[in-house]
């Protein structure tokens, strides 16, 4: 019997349970570093799937990057894609399973570097699935190299003197780019560093899954996230650094929301 089962059974006689581990998050230890935003996002993604009761109808696509093992934790049917190709794989799945909820879960290297063509064209076709985009401005899995979203001046394993705009360009705001395309139905940028941010991200995810029912186009929920190990900071410090250096170039909030006409038509 799992730990959460025990806990609930013994406490329920005195108090109401108001928060527990989501049922669709498998009861295994996640490999992510302490305080990593991936872990929190996995958790709330499954909370949302449980809340909407769509576990049986959901198919997820895992990327290459830190979240490559997402399928070890998310108790839904999962497909692990090649680096950058998650949206192409999702296109294939959605094409033959149009009634299912399909999401991709991708990092900044996967989505905004090697997979840019697939990302842009999925949006341009108005593919009716959800991209969950974790933007922490670094390649975590391979040991902290520069990502296309790394802030200017930020030192990484491959920008040891700081990201130079002249050679590496400016950080790419891919969600904003996608929002320009008519095929993108909903684009929002959220975070998971605080309880309030988590609440907002959950709301955004719920919206995005509900929009998928309307068959109106691509939804992208960007999560500006941290990388304590890559940034060489404690989890708390990394969140503070993220507020100062990431959220200034990637401000939180909705980027593209459907109009009332969009929702009704």
């Amino acid at each position: 019997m799992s730990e959460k089962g025990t806990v609930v059974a013994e406490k329920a006689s005195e108090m109401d349970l108001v928060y527990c581990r989501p049922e669709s998050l498998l009861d295994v230890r996640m490999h992510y570093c302490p305080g990593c935003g991936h872990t929190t996002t996995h958790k709330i993604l499954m909370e949302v799937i449980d809340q909407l009761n769509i576990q049986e109808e959901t198919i997820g696509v895992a990327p290459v990057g830190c979240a490559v093992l997402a399928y070890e934790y998310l108790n839904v049917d999962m497909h692990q894609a090649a680096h950058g190709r998650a949206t192409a794989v999702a296109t294939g799945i959605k094409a033959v399973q149009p009634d299912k909820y399909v999401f991709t879960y991708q990092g900044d290297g996967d989505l905004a570097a090697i997979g840019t063509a697939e990302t842009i064209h999925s949006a341009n076709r108005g593919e009716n699935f959800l991209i969950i985009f974790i933007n922490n401005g670094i390649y975590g899995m391979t040991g902290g190299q520069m990502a296309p979203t790394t802030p200017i001046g930020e030192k990484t394993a491959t920008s040891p003197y700081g990201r130079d705009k002249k050679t590496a360009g400016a950080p790419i705001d891919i969600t904003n780019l996608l929002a320009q395309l008519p095929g993108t139905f909903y684009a929002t940028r959220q975070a998971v560093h605080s309880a309030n941010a988590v609440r907002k991200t959950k709301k955004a995810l719920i919206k995005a899954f509900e929009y998928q029912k309307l068959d109106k186009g691509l939804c992208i929920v960007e999560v500006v996230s941290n990388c304590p190990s890559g940034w060489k900071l404690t989890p708390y410090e990394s969140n503070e650094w993220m507020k100062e250096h990431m959220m200034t170039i990637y401000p939180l909030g909705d980027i593209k929301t459907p109009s009332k006409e969009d929702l009704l038509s």
Partner: protein
Amino acid sequence: MAKVKGEVKIAIETCKGCELCIHECPQETLVMSDELNQRGYHYAVVAIDNCTGCTNCALVCPDACITVYREQRGKKKLVAQLSNITENVTITIDGR
């Protein structure tokens, strides 16, 4: 008005000691343990019995280690449905 009484239960072996819950708790209920868990992490523990059951700590906890309970006035209600244990169990309690 009296504060709502809450309680947290922390799965200490799952905790990775990131301390985000401690920074997020408005009541300063939680502290880090002196002891280590089996993985070698200090883990979050309740220091003061002043929890209001706001769920902030649990929301930011990446590893879903924190279960939150809250005292509530009300009628008999469904609080949890467990399907991950061997048999499906539904628990109902009387509100005080």
